[in-house]
């Protein structure tokens, strides 16, 4: 399969990355090439193979229900491009 310009646009929208028309065109070619490479996987017979999630075989660790973090609003906000009165500030969201 190849990734046409419209698909690039759709995917870029999903990924929230603005692309110019020129970039979109270049990306369509590049992504199609990568996809073509990926599609060699179809040569492999994976019938009955359980997809792998993690290479480590152990029980997921769990923590106790204790408050050990938080209480640092100034540190949480320190790197924010815009904040006021303890809140992060973003352009208005319309619902």
């Amino acid at each position, binding site marked *: 399969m190849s990734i046409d310009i419209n698909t690039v646009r759709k995917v870029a929208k999903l990924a929230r990355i603005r692309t110019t028309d020129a970039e979109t065109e270049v990306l369509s070619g590049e992504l199609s090439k990568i996809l073509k490479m990926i599609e060699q996987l179809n040569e492999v017979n994976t019938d009955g193979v359980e997809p792998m999630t993690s290479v480590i075989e152990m029980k997921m660790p769990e*923590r*106790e229900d204790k408050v*050990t973090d938080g209480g640092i609003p100034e540190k949480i906000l320190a790197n924010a491009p815009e904040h006021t009165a303890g809140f992060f500030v973003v352009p208005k969201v319309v619902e």
Partner: protein
Amino acid sequence: MAHALLKGETGDWEMVIGLEVHAQVLTKSKLFSGASADFGAAPNAQVSPIDAGMPGMLPVINKLCIEKAVRTGLGLNAKINMYSVFERKNYFYPDLPQGYQISQYQHPIVGEGIIEIDLPDGSIKKIGIERLHLEQDAGKSLHDQHPSKSYVDLNRSGNPLMEIVSKPDMNSAEEAAAYVTKLRAIVRYLDTCDGNMDEGSMRCDVNLSMRRPGAPLGTRCEIKNVNSIRFVQQAIEYEARRQIEVLEGGGKITQETRLFDTKNGTTRTMRSKEDAHDYRYFPDPDLLPLKLEQAFVDDIKKTLPELPDAKKKRFIDMGLSPYDASVLVAEKERADFYEKVADNNDPKLAANWVTTELAGALNKAGKALHDSPISAEKLGGLLKLIADNTISGKIAKEVFSEMFATGKDAAKIVDEKGLKQVTDTGTIEKLVNEVLAENPDKVAEYKAGKDKMFGFFVGQVLKRSGGKANPAMVNDLLKAKLGS
């Protein structure tokens, strides 16, 4: 109960309702971070770098959340899945710091279950549970603080939620309300969620579609974040009418997400949904599959409390009416209160006092049960005074008012006010004799066959005793004296 059908211009319609309830797991800390999960802190004061989605931060699961999800699953008579997987649900929103929500998708921790709901007419309906899964809450966006900006508070970000999804088994707003009421009772009984809808600890998404009775399912709309039981009913009623209007006008329902406007009780399309969501779920590589052991589930099973349905059945067996029983078990607090009152007292009498006298007084005073000036023990004490004939039921009401006003013990009030019932035969006989002597004409009437006069004599004797004479003894003595 027969399906409540809605009348349209062109015939009857049936609602099909399914609910997704988000219930915050009752814990100290968040699902994947050690920040506090409490309600009401200053903005961003309960945020760990993990909850803020900072680079390199990793989730570690809170053990208690797993335990409480399983506990809730058991309370919903549901299948516990020994293998479940946390996946990422990817979308962009300012209150979703990681750019994804860690949730469970293909493999939830709890599978199918079933609960019973109590309908206003006293009947019972079974509602299927589709699944329960654990997931992170998002932060909170405030849109009304500034004309062109939104403010974001991440305190809620990462709070542990159980998303409980019902099957589309409900057919009226009342059933939906009864379902939420029952679910809330169950999680409160289990101590897995505080069920406080006004603090957002429980939130409902309503899925609703309309069809002709018996026809296949229609297209549904999802109404997001309906945050009280009353609003659930309002939203359903409005949305059902809206859909009927569209359908009868020859239109089609588009599957969409809608918002409930609490100000005017209507629903409207969410504008931010223009671009169709493609959540790109995939297993979270920062976490491993969650594998439970049977012994872990069995241990939780052993600690399950008696749940509302079982309690209701037991109350009915104790002699209560199904109505009283369901009123009492609807709130765990009320049921617990009742059981304390009923301890060593007549169950029916206790039920009456709790559901009528106390409930009425609290209601009049605008108080909740946990603010009651009369504790369960004290109310039980009052009932004991009735049972052992220290006071009559009538005097008891007087004592009750005094207790409600002052919080004093019943015995103390009876003592101080000298309200102790008179059971001394001599004293009562004296009063009986006085009344009969003062009313010879009435005695004659009675003897001539006017039976109604008997009540008059009883009333007079009681009045003369200041209400304290034991009514049964007054009855007996009068009967003896009048020779009937």
